[in-house]
């Protein structure tokens, strides 16, 4: 809005505080502005699909249609693929759709609020967090078609589906780091949105999305270069896709029933993501004072 209101006394001096002070500031801001984040999330919800005929139904239709496209595509180019392939691929499409919308919305989350940023003093860090959270709700909606799809593959339904929220939490932390970093960097480098779109597409095809990690071992080019295999396994989305797939579809090589995900890998990814969030928050806070000047 047009007014800005600050607590009783504040003092601004030129110069930047150290990284730990910035991180502390960021944490304090997020905790004290939880309601703002909540309002932003519900505003985002309300806006999504408000100008389409089918509205929120698109959250359910989108991943299903994407799955159909990939199933047709993969069936044509490769006659050999996993059993129950629709489910195999849906287990990757759902989390990826969430992540790619976090990237798309996160990149512009700060830039889009230029008018507000020039007029009110508020912690900008809530913007990428709100975007990530709003898309988490979208992911929740995506579970509806997942359950629908599972009815076609009843033998794969298991209690391990209850792991999905745990895996989603790890992905949420990783997504927040991404959104924060992109939101801040895009203020100064507006080409980031275009670049991110292409990198995302590349990342999707390089991740074990349409295939499983063990299929890589059969490719002689990779077999002779173990570092490629190591790199492929270190990919955060290799860990995530494998985890989702293990609980939804079963062992990604198609040989076993659904099971609990590899907790060691998930914990390692969570730890790495927490570090990334801290780094992204420091970078964000470091760049924040210049937002109003550049926007």
């Amino acid at each position, binding site marked *: *809005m*047009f*007014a*800005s*209101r*600050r*607590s*009783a*006394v*504040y*003092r*601004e*001096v*030129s110069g930047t505080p150290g990284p730990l002070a910035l991180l502390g500031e960021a944490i304090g801001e997020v905790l*004290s*502005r939880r*309601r*703002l984040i909540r*309002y*932003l999330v519900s*505003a985002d919800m*309300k*806006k999504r699909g*408000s100008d389409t005929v089918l509205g929120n139904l698109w959250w359910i239709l989108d991943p299903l249609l994407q799955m159909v496209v990939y199933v047709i595509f993969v069936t044509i180019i490769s006659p050999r693929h996993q059993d129950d392939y629709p489910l195999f691929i849906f287990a990757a499409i759902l989390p990826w759709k969430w992540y790619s919308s976090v990237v798309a919305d996160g990149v512009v989350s700060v830039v889009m609020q230029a*008018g*507000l*940023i*020039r*007029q*009110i*003093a*508020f912690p900008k860090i809530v913007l990428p967090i709100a975007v990530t959270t709003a898309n988490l709700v979208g992911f929740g909606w995506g579970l509806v078609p997942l359950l629908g799809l599972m009815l076609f593959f009843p033998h794969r339904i298991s209690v391990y589906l209850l792991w999905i929220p745990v895996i989603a939490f790890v992905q949420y932390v990783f997504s927040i780091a991404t959104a924060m970093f992109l939101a801040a960097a895009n*203020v*100064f480098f*507006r080409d980031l949105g275009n670049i991110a779109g292409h990198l995302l597409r590349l990342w999707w095809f390089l991740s074990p999305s349409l295939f499983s990690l063990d299929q890589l071992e059969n490719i002689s080019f990779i077999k002779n270069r173990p570092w490629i295999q190591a790199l492929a396994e270190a990919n955060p989305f290799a860990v995530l896709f494998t985890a989702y797939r293990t609980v939804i579809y079963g062992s990604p090589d198609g040989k076993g029933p659904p099971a609990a995900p590899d907790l060691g890998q998930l914990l390692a990814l969570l730890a790495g993501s927490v570090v990334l969030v801290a780094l992204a928050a420091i970078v964000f806070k470091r760049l924040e*004072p*210049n937002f*109003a*000047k*550049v926007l």
Partner: protein
Amino acid sequence: MLRRRTPAPPRTPAGATDAIVASNLGVQYDLRFNRKRPMREALAKVITRHPPERFWALRHVDVRLAHGESLGVIGPNGAGKSTLLQVLAGIMRPSEGSVEVRGAVSGLLTLGAGFDQELSGRENILLGGAFLGLDDKVTRELMPGIVEYADIGAFIDAPIKTYSSGMRARLGFSIATAVDPDILLLDEVLSTGDATFREKSKARVIDLVRSAKAVVLVTHDMSWVEEYCNRAILLEKGQVIIEGPPAEVVETHLNRTEMARVEREAAARGAGLDPRIAS
């Protein structure tokens, strides 16, 4: 909030009663990151000599404002007036110097931006309150007053995108003035809305100016400065040219504007003559 303060104690120079103390304030812009210039300009920049990539929007500016004072800020376009307000509001961190503000700040900056088009007026009030850092309870308490003053009837529950620009301005003004600040920052608020609303809003701004503990008013309307401010500064190119009683500062400003105009005209005539002399 909305706490009533005891009347400010008598002004003492450099005392703790100062509402705003800004010393040696400087704000530097780095033009390399402002890529909004058109292609044509970017091209011209490559062909001609490179202009400096950084400039100071404000430099060596000292502002001291006691509670109970009202400061007018005048100057030509691009003098750094709005930048000064943004620094005082905590929107921008100074590149140089320091600013200290004691009291709740409310700024009526430019009306018009900031609303979420898809949300209703009521939802925008809640969201706006959250952005301002108001407690949700406080925003809900202020709601009836805001809605009543904005006077937009049933539209309050319709999305902002269905509003006319006048309704938008009325709602924005109503939200911005609903809070009762210690320090009020005003930036050209009176140029929006229809004539009736302008009158209504002018009355409210005057009320706010009278009741606020300290006011900084940026305006091109000299009568405002002379009428409502007890001190004024003239900014030009980011520097304070003169500070003092409003009448004196306004006179200096008018004189300098006139001088600049005469010089520009002379320069234009000179340029007009050039080709004939050359031939």
